[in-house]
């Protein structure tokens, strides 16, 4: 019996060590980015594995990248933030509104529209991407609203692409809200708008955290849609787009590449460390649905 317990403790320790080893292995690539961002290009090529000799080079590389006219990092950071924030605002509020009326209106039209949103989830982006650019072009020449190479176009695009899954998830969650709460509010003289914004929206909090995270990470990292709608090297550039452009010209100078990568990683990693639990939970919930 004693032997058994001892064996167990040893086994547990081995498992613990093994797991720590694996986590380290998983994080080595990110660590390599960090140490190589603090080296000169020669050092990187000669000794990519060793720790940097002079950490002040990191700061030098960062200032270099920050003001690099080919990368325009600060501008890409602002562009990415604006696009992500406004798209998320649009997706959550508009999808919640749509899901609510689709759920509470029991007509054939409402059923059909809901099914259309859900069915669109299987459409891969590749099928709509070229016609989308063409259509945006036609639309802007007819209405005068700038759709390509502008915030407007890309934000509308994200709201459109994000709406399917978001409406589906809101719809599922709202089913569990008792109808009586809304009826009571209605009896008390709340109009539809007031009922929705004051009563329904606050109840949705747990689900919109999930929806914000799912859509937020997708939009922040997305590459193909910005490449098509914004184009390469235009005034509005997201971070992935900027890094990709930069790589096209600077793939040989790995010191600058590593620093650019590091600086593109920092915002998302900081966000992950702050909201790690919500992020993991949100992304897993989104997948199972």
């Amino acid at each position, binding site marked *: 019996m004693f032997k058994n317990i001892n064996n167990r403790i040893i086994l*547990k320790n081995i498992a613990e060590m093994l797991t720590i080893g694996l986590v380290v292995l998983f994080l080595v690539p990110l660590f390599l980015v960090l140490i190589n961002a603090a080296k000169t290009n020669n050092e990187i090529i000669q000794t990519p594995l060793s720790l940097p000799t002079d950490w002040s080079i990191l700061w030098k590389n960062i200032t270099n990248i920050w003001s690099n006219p080919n990368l325009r990092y600060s501008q890409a950071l602002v562009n990415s933030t604006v696009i992500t924030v406004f798209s998320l605002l649009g997706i959550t509020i508009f999808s919640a509104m749509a899901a609510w009326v689709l759920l509470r209106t029991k007509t054939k039209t409402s059923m059909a529209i809901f099914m259309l949103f859900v069915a669109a989830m*299987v459409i891969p982006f590749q099928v709509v991407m070229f016609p989308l650019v063409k259509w945006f072009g036609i639309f802007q020449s007819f209405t005068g609203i700038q759709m390509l190479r502008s915030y407007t176009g890309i934000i509308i695009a994200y709201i459109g692409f994000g709406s399917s899954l978001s409406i589906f998830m809101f719809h599922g969650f709202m089913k569990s809200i008792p109808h009586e709460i809304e009826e009571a509010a209605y009896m008390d003289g709340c109009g539809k708008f007031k009922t929705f914004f004051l009563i329904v929206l606050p109840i949705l909090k747990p689900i919109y955290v999930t929806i914000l995270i799912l859509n937020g990470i997708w939009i*922040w990292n997305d590459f193909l849609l910005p490449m098509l709608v914004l184009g390469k090297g235009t005034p509005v550039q997201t971070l992935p787009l900027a890094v990709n452009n930069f790589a096209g010209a600077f793939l040989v100078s790995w010191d600058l590449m590593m620093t650019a990568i590091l600086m593109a990683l920092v915002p998302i990693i900081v966000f992950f460390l702050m909201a790690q639990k919500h992020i993991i939970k949100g992304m897993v919930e989104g997948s199972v649905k």
Partner: protein
Amino acid sequence: MSKFIETFKKMGNDSLNQDKRNQKIVFWLFLFPSLFSFAMVQIIPFAIGIYYSFTNWSATAQFSIDFVGLKNYFDAFQDPAFLYATIITSVYTILNIMLVNVIAFSLALLVTSQLKGRNIYRAGFFLPNIIGGIILGYIWQFIFNYFVPRIAAMAGFTYLAENLMLGNSNTAILAMVIVSTWQSAGYIMMIYVAALQNVPRDLIEAAQIDGANAWQRFRNITVPMVSQAFTVTLFLTLVNSFKQFDVNVSLTNGGPSTMFMGRAIKGTTLLAMNISDTSTISLNTAQAQAKAIIFFLVLVTFSLIQVYISKKREVEL
């Protein structure tokens, strides 16, 4: 008196109609922003896209777009690059499904056992998943070109020390599998973790008391209890591998070239990238559109099979 009742009824009807009309207005008003954006980027482009796949639409300036019937579809099936991309995507997808799921499931077993730092480990394994495909492709390009040869030289693997993995199309596909495993294993792991945590503890304890050993408990309790999760994870890895684009662009950019059906073509170009290249490099957007629709039909088939299997499973349980 009867006149009074009549008027009263009419008033009631009016307000009822008014209410119905209001409800209709609210319905469309609330729906409008989502439906408008959705139509702008999904419904209209989808419809245009189907039409364009039957025309000679090109990425260059052209006078008129003419109907050409099924030509693009026939051409697509005779395009060596597209056939090659289909084969290589299938190979990549199969390898990916196996590697990701084996690693993810093993990690899930580790982090659901009674380890002290299990929450930190979970976060560590999950972290690569929130990094965008473009960025991590460049990180790994550096690793395969500078890190791997050195480590291989130290460890005495001469082949890897002297040849770059990204320099040969076969090993470059393997490199892509490694990168996407690194990216998605932690995510798939968490789906298994959620399933494993739902396995009732008393069931396992009961089996333990009845004398079932660790392997028997695993085989006869854990695996059947998480089988539902397998449908989800297999489907997710299948679809995500099939649609892979970002890592393809930043890690190999479709190269290096290889010979196929007597033609030199880019050796690691997956389907999504081939579709994109057909328009941006070959400038034949109509053919790209036809390829995309074939791609779509394959994905729909996968989805239907998945729904069918899940439904069947639910009935059995």
